[in-house]
């Protein structure tokens, strides 16, 4: 098993290498001069001062040299300093990760807790009323742009109902004054989380319920289920003990894929709700031309993606004894 994981990890090196080149090239193409961004709007500096800053930031060298220097630093987890936050990029990301993580965790728990029973029931009564309802539900869910759904929720729920906040993560006044208790803070954040969590949960339910349903259907058609039935077992036992356990396999794989994704933010949605997560920070960093942030967050997303694929494969190999580790 360890050898399998080790081999898969080695496979990742060229993948990450190419992705970092892509990211570096993207940021090279970005408009504007990072020196100006560093100095801020309307600062009065002479050309000599600007040249000195340029040299200090290492911007006077060619792109290839800078790429390898950057890569060397990335390997040591040194992503430089954020021009906007005036702090090491790693620290900035470190604080915002948890805002994305806490929201994603709630969404993931809800999504799995709902989709597994729903998926099983849809599979057992295939094409029944319950199944058809969820078919329509998931179709609408995957077809609705998440940001539009978010706007509708804000328009029809948050605007008429005064105690549901429009956006943000905390009530500004409360956060400035300080909360009375931890409970108070948790409640405040929770109520801000309500709408984005609804949107994200519904959009993940749309694909998850289908996924669970299809993997249960696949299992139900197997010979060993027929055997279990012909043995005279109760339908409940057949479904929950024999079928579900085997259907769990692809679901666990999916869970493996999801876990690294918990740390990444849903970019567009966080932007709509002004949720201070990783996705939102990437967007504002792009607008602010905070290039070291943009690069670092892109690398971060790439690592999450690659880890997700790896986790999916590894968890599959772990759960399914039929898969031989080569």
């Amino acid at each position, binding site marked *: 098993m360890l050898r399998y994981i080790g081999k898969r990890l080695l496979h990742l090196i*060229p*993948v990450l290498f*190419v*992705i970092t080149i*892509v*990211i570096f090239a*993207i*940021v090279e*193409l*970005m*408009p504007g001069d990072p020196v100006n961004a560093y100095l801020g709007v309307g600062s009065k500096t002479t050309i000599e001062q600007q040249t000195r800053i340029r040299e200090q930031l290492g911007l006077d060298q060619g792109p290839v040299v800078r790429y390898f220097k950057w890569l060397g630093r990335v390997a040591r987890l040194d992503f430089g300093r954020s021009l906007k936050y005036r702090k090491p990029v790693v620290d900035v990301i470190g604080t915002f990760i948890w805002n994305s993580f806490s929201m994603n965790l709630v969404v993931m728990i809800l999504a799995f807790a709902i989709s597994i029973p729903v998926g099983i029931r849809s599979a057992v009564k295939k094409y029944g009323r319950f199944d058809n309802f969820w078919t329509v539900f998931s*179709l*609408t869910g*995957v*077809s*609705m*742009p*998440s*940001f*539009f759904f978010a*706007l*509708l929720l*804000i*328009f029809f729920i948050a*605007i008429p109902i005064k105690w549901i906040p429009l956006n943000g993560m905390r009530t500004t006044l409360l956060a400035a004054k300080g909360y009375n208790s931890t409970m108070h803070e948790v409640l405040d954040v929770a109520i801000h989380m309500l709408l984005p969590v609804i949107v994200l949960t519904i959009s993940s339910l749309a694909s998850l319920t289908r996924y669970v349903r299809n993997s249960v259907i696949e299992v139900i058609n197997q010979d060993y289920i027929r055997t279990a039935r012909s043995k005279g077992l109760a339908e409940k036992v057949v479904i929950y003990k024999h079928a579900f356990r085997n259907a769990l396999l692809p679901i666990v794989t999916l869970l493996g894929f999801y876990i690294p994704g918990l740390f*990444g933010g849903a*970019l*567009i949605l966080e*932007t709509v709700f002004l949720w201070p997560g990783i*996705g939102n920070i*990437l*967007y504002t960093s*792009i*607008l602010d031309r905070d290039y070291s942030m*943009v690069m670092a*967050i*892109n690398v971060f*997303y*790439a690592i*999450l*993606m*690659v880890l997700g*694929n790896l986790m999916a494969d590894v968890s599959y190999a772990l759960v399914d004894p039929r898969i031989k580790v080569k």
Partner: protein
Amino acid sequence: MEKHPHSVELTEAQKKAMAVGPWRLAWDRFKKNRIALWGGSLFLIILVSVLLVPVISSYKLSEFDLANKNLPPSGEHLLGTDEQGRDVLLRLFLGGRISLRVGIMAAGVTVLLGALVGGIAGYYGGVVDNILMRFAEIVYSIPFVPTVISISAALMFRVSSEYKMYLIMFLIGILSWPGLARLVRGQILSLREQEFMLATEALGLSSFSRIVRHLLPNTLAYIIVSATLSMASAILTEAGLSFLGLGVTPPTPTWGNMIERARDFKVFRDFYWMWIPPGVMIMLTVVSINLLGEGLRDSFDPKENR
């Protein structure tokens, strides 16, 4: 002489049954699939109205009418007017043209790249297959949303407004092909071993003709399904990008950048007719395409016997 009309009919029916090819079978199954028919008709209606409404409309896109700005829906302006007094209904359908075009062309790029790479990898196998599939794996590992957003932000100011939509289509296409490439490759690997390919070899056909004319058509079912589904997701991606202001930018209307107006809180709260209709249109379009795609998948799938 006795006539046997019955037996004649039977033989005709038998002939007909023998003549039914895979396409005919798929079409018959598709016709029976009511959901797919609904999706297809809805999509056709949207397509036709997007083409026709701007022609019929008595308003023009370039007409500014500041005296009649921010008007709510009425008999004269069915969906009201925007902040510059332009007819929202007209902009909605003109925007639809762009959004649909981006979707169709992005799907085209995806299919072209996916089918070619998958076809070549599957046909040649060995080192070529290895290299191409490693490359597909790398592209597949690129996180889609952050990368698309970063690239289009990087190129935003280098590309003029009218070319931006081409930029967006290529971006979406270039990042979305690996899924289809894998599918096509898998199919071709098994098709390659069949007898008709031996026949093409005996005929001395070129590799190009063997891939494009004999192998790819056999994977067409997958390609068509994948094309419809990737069109749906391309429309959603374009909408998201334009909503963030990183896609197609005004004055060219698209559904995404019409919703973008809702980021202005006053427009959002008071002028709902400016941003709800484009959102509804995106939803209807994507639902119709997805229904069509699912229906096609079922019709082409020989295992599906509903």
